[in-house]
């Protein structure tokens, strides 16, 4: 059976469009607002939602998402609560939802139980930035069993061997990070994104979404020329407390740019 994420990418390809994948931190500034935000994101044309799980030591994240994680932790948000939140969201929406979490909360939860519970609540995939495929045998095994997509990352530093390995281990899509750096960093305009993506495409036909460093509609438009999807995180997280109209305008400008 094909996953909801794979199905979404096929649908987008048929329409000759590209996926808009916004990221927000679950529980920032509180769970109620997260539920509202998901509706807003969907209304503004999001195709897939990446939901951050707060962690005490987010070493792949820049200051914006670090602070968001801290606010969510202060609200008492945990991996368990995020899974329950997704179950609640599923009453109203069928949009694909991916959890982005660091490895230790999953490890502590228990990988097998996590895959079962996450899948049962309606989570479609997971991204774990500090877990390369080399260390993910168990999580991949249990995720396959529970039909949870495992999305791994590639970077500009990735060698051919790494590209093969990550492409093989990824389901749903491959997450390409266009910069060496952390979330919310500045995207440096160079031509390497295009050539790196071409290189990945030469070994796989899995969809490739690009995230880290994309904040303006211009950047999103530029990236969407090569990628199957564009992920925007920190720039949205910065705006979640703005009045809804301003947030919506920003989201729509991104949506229209990603074609």
């Amino acid at each position, binding site marked *: 059976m094909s996953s909801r994420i794979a199905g979404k990418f096929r649908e987008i390809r048929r329409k000759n469009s590209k996926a808009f994948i916004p990221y927000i931190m679950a529980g920032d500034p509180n769970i109620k607002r997260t539920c509202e935000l998901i509706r807003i994101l969907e209304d503004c044309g999001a195709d897939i939602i990446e939901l951050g799980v707060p962690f005490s030591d987010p070493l792949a994240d820049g200051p914006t998402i670090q602070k968001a994680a801290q606010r969510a932790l202060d609200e008492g948000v945990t991996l368990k609560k995020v899974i329950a939140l997704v179950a609640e969201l599923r009453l109203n929406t069928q949009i694909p939802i991916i959890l982005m979490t660091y490895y230790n909360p999953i490890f502590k939860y228990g990988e097998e139980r996590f895959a079962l519970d996450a899948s049962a609540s309606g989570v479609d995939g997971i991204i774990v930035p500090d877990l390369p495929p080399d260390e993910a045998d168990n999580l991949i095994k249990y995720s396959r069993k529970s039909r949870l997509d495992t999305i791994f990352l590639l970077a500009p530093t990735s*060698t051919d061997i790494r590209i093969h390995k990550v492409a093989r281990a990824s389901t749903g899509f491959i997450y390409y990070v266009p910069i*060496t750096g952390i979330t919310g960093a500045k995207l440096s305009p160079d031509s390497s994104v295009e050539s790196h993506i071409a290189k990945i495409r030469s070994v796989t036909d899995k969809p490739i979404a690009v995230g880290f460093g994309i904040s303006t509609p211009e950047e999103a438009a530029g990236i969407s020329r090569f990628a199957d999807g564009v992920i925007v995180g920190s720039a949205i997280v910065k705006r979640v407390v703005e009045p809804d109209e301003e947030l919506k305008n920003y989201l729509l400008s991104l949506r229209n740019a990603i074609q």
Partner: protein
Amino acid sequence: MYFWVKIDKKRGLTIKRLPDKKGYFGNYGGRFAPETLIPALDELEKVYHASKKDRGFQKELLLLQRTYIGRPTPLYFAHRLTGLLAGAKIYLKREDLAHTGAHKINNAVGQALLAKKMGKTRLIAETGAGQHGVATATGAALMGLECEIYMGTDDIARQSLNVFRMKLLGAKVNEVSIGSRTLKDAINEAMRDWTTNVRTTHYVLGTAFGPNPFPAMVRDFQSVIGKEAKKQILFAEGRLPDYLVACVGGGSNSIGLFHEFLPEDVKMIGVEAGGRGVDTGDHAARFAGGSVGVLQGTKSYLLQDEDGNVLGTHSVSAGLDYAAVGPEHAYLKDTGRVQYTYAHDEEALNAFELLSRTEGIIPALESSHALAEVIKFAPRLSQDKIIIVNLSGRGDKDVQHVARIKGVLLS
């Protein structure tokens, strides 16, 4: 790389080489790092393994150890302390006499040399007590490399002397004011910097922790401590010691002393920071109060809550104030090869003063934890027993902090 000898009842003697190819010591270790860093870790692993067989590299390292670091450091018989405690003979391995005042320089110079070999132009490091920051800044000055150090706000306050030393050595010191504002957050920031600047920068991780190959590499650079101590005690006493004692933060000075003795019939004790008491939650005793988890690249014992978030820690010594412990120690703990205990802040402070008065040696507060354990158990041993304590660093950096605790105003 050492050979760990284990008796297997069915098949007789089996021999294990640790870590394994994926950087595991039993169940602990590994490489839990962002994809961006994996190629750099692969390269580091390759260069580090090659350096062990590279006679030119080893010769250069040996020359620096002798002429720059001041090795071998002495093994000193602490006769007044031994007399006072009226038990086992106590020897101090004087890492406090190494250049820059602690064992940290052994690893920093080794890694700086490797970085130069890899063509990196910039070194970064985290630091808690400041000793590793000073050691890395020193290594960078020695090799003509740029240097930036990450240090938590709380640690900057309690180790201000070392902050100024780093600056004198030409390093930039970046204050880390997020999270617990101590060593753990300094490591997070250093990892973020490394992820961003990986092409030009080498991350000199200061302890036997982090993603493979760091735990084994740092151990190997520090194992010179145990190799020297073995020769020195054989020369002084004609036999191996009965006990080795060292403090355990991340665990580099302790593994540096223990490593050479692992196959021998020598008991070993690692001393963690008991802080204000393990029951209070204000401590850094990972083996007494932690559970298995994954933090900053490696699987090991960790102080964490039931949801896998890392807990805050406390210790009077910045160098032991850390939520996780090196993966090889986790393995040695599970196998029972090394016994782990802890000393409270107050016990460490008492040991700090006692050694100063009885031997004229002011120890680092970190090392004072190891001394505190010796003060507890040496009197129970007979006088023909021998203990070697790793005096991992000198206490000059702690003098202001201790004065503050004692309510003494320094102008």
